[in-house]
């Protein structure tokens, strides 16, 4: 039994979009959980203004081959779209198949990979993994091109097992060495995937105890049919959207959902968001916001006339430079986001939100609403109940300081 009150609605929206405001919470409560989920998981029409501005930003980035502009385009898209779940899922896969421009060095390839996550990310993981394995950016990123018959390169074969499909402990070093041979000859020509027959090792390989003249696709299929795969996806989904340390029992239940839906992503995410556990007090307010969550989740509800280049630089400075994850493992997330310098930078940003125009302009109605009627905003701003002491401090503060004081609290870093 789920009590879908303002607090539960705010929790759901915080996890499925970037930040939340009181009107969105009211609408969700009014419509109820099922209708809200249906709306969030069904494509919604974009506004003409958004469609035009995102196209202009994207075209400029591609035309000038500027990765910096492409980063700004994506952040603008995440904040402005009428389909936030799609962007959250796209970001999820960017972190899962973490590929960096810093090695790929091609704006068209990074753009194509990002589109791929957006188009296929909510659907079948079978199709997604199969496509990613031939994705040009991935072939550059994990040295597919250097994988030749007589000199196998293990980079992709290792990560497809360790980070993409199975997780540590579900394969042997031998499996990786054999699988690497199956991917030999998966090369690039003129920026496209090219099966280079002359560099492909077509001899027998033994992987997961099975022997055959496996090619790369056969290895991908073996990974997809491996019992560890649904469990691994379940862990990643729960960790990103629900709770940092999911229990083994919960992982098993979500793995069963992945099996039921033949590894299709969005229906599993939707069912998880429909389950009573998702609304437990051990789930709400337990995830430390990533820089993108913090920055977009603050600016989208509170500000207008957002300065995207400044926002892009800020997100990178805070440790989440989109299109440039630190390694193939992606961003660790959780407590790893937080350290002393990160605190200083997060506070400096939040202080700028209320005290400067550096990243955008605080909406005047927000400033007034928080000074006059702070209660409505408390549910939107805080994912975790405030202690009596904290409430007292906020109440005693002069009204004009309430918003900035709220944003500076450790509670504000949770979602």
């Amino acid at each position, binding site marked *: 039994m789920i009590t879908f009150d303002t607090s539960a609605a705010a929790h759901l929206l915080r996890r499925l979009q970037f930040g939340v405001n009181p009107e969105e919470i009211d609408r969700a409560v009014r419509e109820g959980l099922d209708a809200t989920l249906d709306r969030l998981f069904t494509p919604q029409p974009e506004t003409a203004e958004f469609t035009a501005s995102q196209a202009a930003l994207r075209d400029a980035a591609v035309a000038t081959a500027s990765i910096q502009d492409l980063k700004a385009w994506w952040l603008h898209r995440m904040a402005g779209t009428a389909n936030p779940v799609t962007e959250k899922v796209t970001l999820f896969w960017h972190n899962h198949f973490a590929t960096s421009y810093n090695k790929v060095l091609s704006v068209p390839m990074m753009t194509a990979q990002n589109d791929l996550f957006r188009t296929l990310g909510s659907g079948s993981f079978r199709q997604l993994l199969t496509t990613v394995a031939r994705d040009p950016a991935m072939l550059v990123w994990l040295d597919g091109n250097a994988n030749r018959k007589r000199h196998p390169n293990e980079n992709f074969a290792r990560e497809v097992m360790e980070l993409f499909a199975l997780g540590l402990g579900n394969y042997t*070093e031998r499996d990786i060495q054999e699988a690497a041979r199956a991917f030999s000859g998966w090369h690039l020509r003129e920026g496209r995937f090219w099966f280079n027959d002359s560099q492909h090792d077509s001899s027998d390989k033994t992987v997961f105890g099975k022997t055959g003249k496996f090619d790369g696709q056969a290895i991908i299929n073996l990974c997809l049919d491996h019992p560890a795969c649904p469990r691994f996806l379940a862990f990643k989904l729960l960790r990103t959207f629900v709770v940092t340390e999911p229990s083994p029992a919960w992982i098993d239940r979500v793995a069963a959902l992945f099996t039921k839906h033949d590894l299709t992503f969005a229906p599993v995410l939707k069912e998880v968001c429909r389950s009573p556990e998702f609304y437990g007090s051990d789930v709400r307010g*337990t995830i430390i916001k990533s820089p993108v969550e913090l920055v977009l989740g603050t600016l989208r509800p509170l500000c207008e006339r957002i300065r995207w280049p400044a926002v892009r630089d800020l997100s990178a400075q805070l440790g989440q430079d989109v299109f440039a994850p630190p390694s193939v493992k992606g961003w660790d997330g959780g407590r790893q986001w937080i*350290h002393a310098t990160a605190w200083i930078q997060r506070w400096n940003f939040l*202080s700028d939100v209320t005290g400067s125009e550096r990243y955008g302009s605080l909406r005047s109605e927000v400033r007034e609403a928080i000074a006059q009627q702070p209660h409505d905003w408390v549910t939107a701003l805080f994912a975790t109940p405030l202690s009596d002491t904290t409430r007292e401090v906020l109440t005693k503060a002069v009204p004009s300081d309430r918003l900035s004081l709220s944003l500076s609290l450790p509670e504000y870093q949770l979602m």
Partner: protein
Amino acid sequence: MSTNRRDFLKLLGTAGVVSLAGPAPSLWSSALGAEAAKGERVLVLIQMAGGNDGLNTVIPFGDDAYLKARPALAIGKGAALKLNDTLGLHPAMSGFRDLWEASRLAIVQGVGYPKPDRSHFRSMDIWQAAHFSERIPTGWVGRMLDQTVAQTGMAWEAACIGQDKLPLSCLGERVVPPTIQRLEEFRLTSAGRETALVSTAAWKQAVSSSESGSELDFLRRSATSAVTSAERLASLSKTYRSATPYPSSRLAQQLQLVAQMITADLPARVYFVTLDGFDTHSQQLPGHAVLLGELSSAVSAFFADLDEKGRGDSVMLTTFSEFGRRLAENGSLGTDHGAASVLFTVTPAGKGGLYGTAPSLTDLDDGDPKFTTDFRRVYATLLDRWLQRPSQPVLGEAFAPLDFA
């Protein structure tokens, strides 16, 4: 009392010591008043991230198996900086050669652990946690800091310089060390108000309550630590002068900040810095030379600076990496993930030399040299002998120290 220290205490007087109700962090808040902090032993750790190729760092040019396995990558007798008749340093490491000649460079050979894991992430976690369980919540330095405060009341601290995240090594259950990327980025701005909001009494009251173990508790502890650190470090840059030129590399700049903090007698006893880029799968020779040159010149300037300030004798520096590389080069003029490797310690006490046994290059484990010295023996040496903190409770079992400290 040195000028630096006087300025620092003055700064303390104005900023005050943050006191919080509940189990507040002691980070950067106590021990500052104690004159005893001056000249205490300090440990600096340099993580060589990516898996350093130990065989092309301390080069066994006298071993045919090395030369045969690496037709394109081997560095020969003529080029290596000779340590003895069979071993030499990479040619880019002249700074380390000078430290070797001054008997301050200890080289530990064949360092690793049983059943080596060739995943960067897993192996780095093993090195940083000094523990083999899958879910490792704390690192070895963090546990040492936790135990030190629990057993002696001494609020020893650590500082991570130039990190974009807190390294697992330094994470304790109670202790969350500050990470300082660059001093100039470590300033609270106040956007129009007189003082930053987080420096006000109201804010400090609002973060004072605590419930143990939750994410919120972690956030409150680390937030308080960050505010206190920022207040302490606010005028640090004005108090430091150095006659020693540092190279312009990132590592050198980070080590200069470490020297600055050591000279100001901040309460950190362990500093952690990283040099990244050692994952040399392809075209290894030029990139590896740049990295080793950066390491060698930065460390050499760091000790020259500390010596000039009379602090060289109280600082020990140790490098580590998650693994070495395979003996045989690959087809891309690089080397793939391996196992055992070498590590360096700059020891002030004239205890330079070779420690441990160089692994055989003909008796291999899946293409990699086998480890001969457990990495936890190095940690035991640093803990028991250098920092004089018992290693057994930190490492979970007893390891025999080496003699470089």
